[in-house]
């Protein structure tokens, strides 16, 4: 990405933050909080997600056979199934149906698949009036805008903006003002348009192969009207929507509303087996009783491939087909909460999983527009009702984008860079992906390197060439690394006297920059009678992975494992300070290492506070640690990946056991996300996300507390936002702690 392109992108994001950010933030955070509350009511939430996932895995595996079964049931029921290869094919078929019906008007209920097809435009070319009946979609149709959210398409618009729009467009006798007035006005207008519509078009959240039924999840009732009023029903659905049987719907009915907008269930779950028995609501026969009608309803199920069968064959994109389009991954995403789907989205889809959809149905170019906005924080992983590894899909697509871009530096870069990537990788990504090499060099030349990077002209140059935003303070490198310090100092608890033996993993940040937190970790472990070693093991590969440099990350994984294997075999515990590195060991490494190796490391490694908690629980004497009595009150922000791994509870438990007074943040992510907040094009977004955290730590109750964060990035972000020191939990517990 050129300097100009980065500036344009930053400008676009700034514009959305200013115009749509507020409404998007309020709505998505509301949905996300609703999700937490609603799923908490489910006794067997995890089991339900497993069940839903298993149904999808099975359905996608057996998809060709299910399509044929569905074709038979739909035809037996008296409907037609059309399998469309692509959008053009689907639109051609739908236009033919409209032509056969001599349709003047098609009324639609909300369907993202129909947005993907751009079927409205196709029908309008033939002079057909297409009306969106979902209130949010209708607002956008009137405003001529695109959805900013896959479930609540107009969340970027406030009540006042909609009122202005309607008043300008329709000039009602009394100007409309409240949501109630706007809703009733829309109901009336749309009711008229539905009354004499010729065709009703819906999507389908699920389609059951055994009965030929479609399930529609709505709250307004517009999908019910759309399906029942006209005599012709066209349902448009991606092929991935098929599940084997009606009974398979149960877990999805329980999960979809809760996961999406935080409703236990939406007002209506339509289970229609078309053509339906219900009478047509025919305005041309206003006095014929429904019971006396003899309707001959028509039903067309248009199943859309449009790249999906190829996604099914793609081992990395396949999981995308399990997506039930609930929007949980969008609502839980800190970046999405700030900018919404107009920035965090491609041609059709938005939010975390959109990268998979866009890459699969529109191609990597569309995905490349917004893929960078996934920082890999992983908060969406536990929110997803079918447990899709959304960050991984984003990483894989990023890797593919890296390989597709024009390689300006091919001839120069290959062979010279320390990574495993082709020359086409963007220079900015390459810089952050090779952060370890940079850190090593900067540490070796510190403090000169620190002085240099403080110079204005240097920062200008860095911004221009590699897009490091000049407003973001850079980390200061230590001349003496943690590994060197420890080698000189040696362990203070001998192996012979130790309760346990631990290997403290020297992550890049702790080793070269925040050496103090590494030293604190050593002292905390030794205070609990642990014999500590710090071997010279390389970076985990988190940095290159975050830039989509998968081969480089893979290579790092091998080197880390070979550096730790002997220790694991000797039953030494691997203790990790940085949660994002532990997340590599516990999750991503299974993709890079042989299963047995990945398992050994996964089972033998611990987050430092998880480890301390385990020691204390197993009877270690906590006397040597600083307790709440001697320490300060704390404002604690746990790390996104630490929370996804379920590890934040250990830090919380230790603080509680040691009687600290703790106030905890409840935001999903600090917004820094490793390199993200340094990038010129994303700096302002990063700060906007961070503001939510800053707000919680600047209240009167929080402003005098010591700021504590488990992640490197979070510490940096908090220091930049609050202009207060931020430390790691081990620096609080450190018997020699000077942090108050």
């Amino acid at each position, binding site marked *: 990405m050129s300097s100009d392109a980065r500036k344009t992108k930053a400008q676009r994001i700034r514009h959305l933050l200013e115009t749509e950010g507020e409404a998007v933030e309020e709505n998505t955070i509301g949905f996300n909080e609703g999700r937490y509350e609603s799923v908490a009511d489910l*006794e067997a939430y995890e089991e339900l997600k497993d069940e839903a996932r298993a149904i999808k895995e099975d359905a996608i595996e057996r998809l060709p056979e299910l399509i044929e079964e569905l074709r038979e049931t739909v035809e037996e*029921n008296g409907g037609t199934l059309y399998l469309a290869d692509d959008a053009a094919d689907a639109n051609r078929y739908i236009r033919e149906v409209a032509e056969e019906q001599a349709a003047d008007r098609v009324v639609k209920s909300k369907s993202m698949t129909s947005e993907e097809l751009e079927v409205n435009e196709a029908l309008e070319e033939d002079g057909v009036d297409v009306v969106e*009946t*979902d*209130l949010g979609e209708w*607002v956008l149709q009137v405003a001529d805008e695109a959805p900013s959210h896959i479930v*609540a398409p107009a969340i970027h*618009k406030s*009540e*006042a903006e*909609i009122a202005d729009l309607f008043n300008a467009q329709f000039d009602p006798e009394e100007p409309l003002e*409240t*949501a*109630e007035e*706007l*809703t*009733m006005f*829309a*109901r009336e207008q*749309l*009711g008229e348009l539905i009354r004499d519509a010729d065709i009703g078009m819906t999507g389908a959240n699920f389609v059951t192969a*055994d*009965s030929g039924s479609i399930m529609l999840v709505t709250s*307004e*009732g*517009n999908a*019910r*009207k759309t399906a*029942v*009023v006209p005599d012709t029903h066209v349902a448009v659905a991606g092929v991935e929507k098929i599940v084997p*049987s*009606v*009974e398979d*719907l*149960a877990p999805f*009915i*329980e999960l979809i509303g809760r996961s999406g907008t935080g409703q*236990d*269930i939406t*007002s*209506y*779950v*339509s*289970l*229609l*087996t*078309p053509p*339906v*028995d*219900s*009478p047509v*609501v*025919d305005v041309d*026969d*206003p006095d*014929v*009783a*429904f*019971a*006396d009608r003899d309707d001959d309803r028509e039903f067309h199920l248009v199943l859309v491939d449009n790249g999906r069968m190829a996604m099914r064959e793609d081992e990395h994109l396949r999981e995308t087909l399990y997506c039930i389009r609930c929007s949980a991954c969008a609502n839980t995403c800190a970046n999405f909460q700030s900018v919404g789907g107009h920035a965090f989205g491609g041609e059709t889809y938005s939010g975390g999983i959109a990268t998979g959809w866009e890459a699969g149905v529109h191609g990597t170019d569309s995905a490349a527009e917004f893929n960078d906005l996934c920082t890999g924080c992983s908060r969406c992983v536990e929110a997803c009702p079918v447990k899709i590894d959304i960050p991984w899909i984003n990483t894989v697509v990023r890797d593919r984008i890296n390989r597709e871009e024009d390689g300006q530096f091919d001839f120069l870069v290959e062979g010279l860079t320390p990574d495993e990537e082709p020359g086409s990788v963007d220079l900015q990504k390459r810089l952050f992906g090779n952060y370890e090499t940079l850190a090593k060099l900067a540490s070796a030349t510190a403090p000169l390197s620190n002085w240099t990077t403080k110079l204005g002209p240097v920062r200008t140059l860095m911004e221009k060439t590699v897009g490091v935003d000049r407003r973001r303070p850079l980390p200061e490198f230590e001349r003496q690394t943690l590994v060197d310090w420890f080698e000189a100092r040696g362990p203070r608890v001998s192996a012979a006297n130790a309760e346990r033996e631990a290997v403290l993993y020297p992550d890049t940040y702790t080793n070269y920059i925040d050496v103090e937190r590494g030293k604190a970790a050593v002292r905390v472990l030794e205070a609990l009678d642990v014999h500590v070693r710090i071997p010279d093991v390389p970076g985990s590969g988190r940095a290159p992975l975050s830039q989509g440099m998968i081969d480089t990350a893979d290579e790092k994984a091998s080197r880390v494992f070979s550096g730790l294997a002997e220790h694991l075999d000797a039953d030494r515990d691997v203790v990790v300070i940085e949660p994002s590195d532990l997340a590599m060991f516990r999750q991503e490494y299974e993709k890079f290492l042989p299963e047995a190796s990945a398992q050994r490391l996964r089972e033998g490694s611990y987050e430092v506070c998880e480890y301390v908690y385990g020691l204390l629980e197993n009877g270690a004497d906590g006397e040597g640690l600083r307790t709440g009595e001697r320490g300060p009150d704390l404002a604690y922000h746990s790390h996104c990946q630490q929370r996804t791994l379920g590890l934040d509870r250990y830090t919380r438990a230790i603080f509680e056991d040691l009687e600290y007074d703790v106030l905890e943040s409840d935001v999903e992510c600090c917004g820094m996300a490793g390199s993200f907040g340094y990038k010129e094009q994303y700096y302002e977004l990063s700060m906007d996300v961070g503001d939510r955290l800053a707000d919680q730590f600047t209240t009167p109750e929080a402003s005098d507390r010591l700021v504590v964060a488990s992640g490197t990035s979070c510490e940096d972000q908090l220091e930049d936002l609050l202009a207060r020191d931020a430390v790691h939990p081990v620096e609080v517990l450190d018997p020699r702690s000077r942090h108050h």
Partner: protein
Amino acid sequence: MSVESPSPVERFEATLAALEVSITRIDPDDEFAQCLETVVTEHGHDTDSVVGTPLPFSSASLPDWVDDEPTPETLETATTGVTAASLGIADYGSVVLPSTAEGSEPVSLFPELHVPVLRESDLVADMPTAIERLGPELRAGRSAIVATGPSATADMGALVTGAHGPKDVHVVLLEDGSTDTEGPEDDDAAAANGGKA
């Protein structure tokens, strides 16, 4: 969760209350017509503009003042719709509304107030049980709506009920004790021990 689970009826009443949906329970000796009149008037509607579809229950049938042969014209002017629910789902406060050739779907959808009539014996505890009951129905070509509370939208900036469908829902629950013969099948035994598996 307490050790002693509430009965399906208690659970149903609690979930409806959380949805702000009112419910009237009537025992077999009570007059259904009288009860329905109270429901309609309590919600501020006129008993002259009530449409309905036949109830397949021996213990209750639509009174004369309900238009049980609605047309598009009368549907348009009606303010209350009365239809049968084939199932109730206690965990969610949902009613299952079967689509019928008589027009239960439009009747339950267009008027401002919807009154679903449910037999207590058709109340099941949870969603999987309800969907298990619906499986054979859907495979036989039938359709149904799982309806929970009124029609609602937040698309205009705040939560509003009555977006396209009813603004209010009032459930009438027919208590056990009658000898039903017209029901689709005798599920009473299953419903009676319909606690969580």
